[in-house]
């Protein structure tokens, strides 16, 4: 099933043409990795999917983006962001307890019932592979967790509002290899229920977790194919050059 449909998407920031004529689809329950050098537009692309770019006053876009066959411009912005959650590069726990962090989004959406909150918190923490490590200290400050745990806490916080799609913006850039492996395990497990879009600077990570991989360069989509194919037999020379580390 198609989750996101993107037709002739263009994005400008002031006079900078950041995304150029992109056409693509994102399938349900897949992990789509987006790779590309700096300034290739991959983060802009990601932040377009939950309309976070709209915070920038110089932002302009045309083209059509459909989520479940509905134009995202017609979806209420708060509802869209609830359906399309996001995990950022740096773990960003709030200065609250672990439990309060996880249910923060739920409370914001007006859920007050303690039982519901507790159930959702446990469920999300389990899905984010963090439950076993924190179940006995939910009332401790989130800052006491390690970097990798904090990132999984942020994943749990995103999961708690029950999104359909989760966007990952270089989620492991600040983590050590072991924490990275845990976050990647969580991601692979999550695609059973959710659609995942992963922007990463780590080409090997894209190869490890992505079902399909998109290669962006200077705002253009150069190639999009099954991850195996991108990494073994890329159609475009520039893709080949980038994954072999010849530029970027």
């Amino acid at each position, binding site marked *: 099933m198609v989750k996101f449909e993107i037709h002739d998407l263009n994005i400008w920031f002031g006079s900078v043409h950041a995304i150029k004529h992109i056409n693509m689809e994102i399938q349900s329950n897949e992990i789509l990795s987006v790779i590309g050098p700096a300034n290739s537009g991959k983060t802009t692309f990601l932040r377009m999917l939950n309309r976070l770019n709209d915070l920038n006053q110089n932002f302009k876009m045309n083209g059509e983006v459909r989520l479940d066959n509905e134009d995202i411009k017609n979806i209420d912005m708060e509802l869209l*962001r609830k359906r399309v959650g996001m995990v*950022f590069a740096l773990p960003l726990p709030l200065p609250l307890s672990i439990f309060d962090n996880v249910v923060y989004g739920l409370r*914001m959406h007006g859920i007050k019932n303690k039982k519901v909150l507790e159930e959702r918190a446990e469920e999300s923490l389990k899905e984010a592979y963090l439950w076993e490590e924190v179940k006995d200290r939910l009332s401790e400050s989130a800052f006491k967790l390690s970097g990798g745990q904090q990132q999984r806490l942020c994943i749990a916080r995103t999961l708690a509002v029950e999104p359909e799609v989760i966007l990952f913006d270089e989620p492991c850039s600040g983590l050590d290899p072991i924490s990275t492996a845990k976050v990647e395990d969580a991601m692979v497990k999550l695609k059973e229920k959710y659609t995942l879009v992963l922007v990463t600077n780590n080409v090997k990570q894209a190869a490890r977790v992505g079902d399909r991989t998109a290669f962006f360069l200077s705002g253009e989509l150069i190639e999009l194919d099954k991850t195996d194919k991108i990494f073994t037999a890329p159609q475009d020379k520039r893709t080949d050059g980038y994954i072999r580390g010849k530029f970027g």
Partner: protein
Amino acid sequence: MRKLKEFIVEKLILICGLASIFFVALIFLFLLKEGLAVFKTVSLFKFLFGKSWYPISEPAQLGILPLILGSLLITVGAAIISIPIGVGCAIYIAEIAPLKIKETLKAGIELLAAIPSVVLGFIGMVTLVPLVKNLFNLPTGLTALSGSIMLAFMAMPTIVSIAEDALYSVPKTYKEGAFALGATHWQTIWRVMLPAASSGILAAVMLGIGRVIGETMAVMMITGNAAVIPHTILAPVRTLTATIAAEMGEAVVGSEHYFALFAIGIVLFVISFAINVTADSFLHKRQQ
């Protein structure tokens, strides 16, 4: 040769640095020396809590409680008016206003800060005072309320610009994180931005209050200057600052009255010092 130059420049800068501390120390010592002399004739308790201020009657009655209460009443009134408006204005400028309105508002706020207090006092006297008088049907419009409103205007630029800075310095990632969870703009401001900027906003409020409590000219012109304990905000009051400004010229040097005015100066000094230290500690907390 170069080393000598280096040495001289270094020492010159050292002297500049020490000079400011030296002057503060001198002022403080002078204030103490002149002010403490009053306690030879009045006890500290009677001075601070005495209910009447008749410095030139025989024997002089030097109780500054009415003056302290006058200052407090006006400050609290000004704070109640200026904090919500000032913080609201800062939120609007930092978060909501489109670029053009933002620039205009900021220029306006800076202009407000540039108006000399005597001009504000003058404007207040001819516009605000009659308004208050007619509105509440009072014998005179020279009241604590008029002073509070006027001083609220003077505290606003300080509160707005520092609170706005505090809101700007909240990391962008906080805001994006809240939005990404599906928060509305107001939820983001109320639950994420304001708590994150709270220490800076508190510092802004404290500095605004510091400005109000030290203000002299405008309050002297529009509060009626009656040194009696005020029972409502619609009564005339006199502040600590206005008392010094109004009476210093006529007090005989070396008299009890003269020393008492210096002692009022000490009280003011202690109050503003306490406010500044509190504001500073909030600002430092924010930087950590």
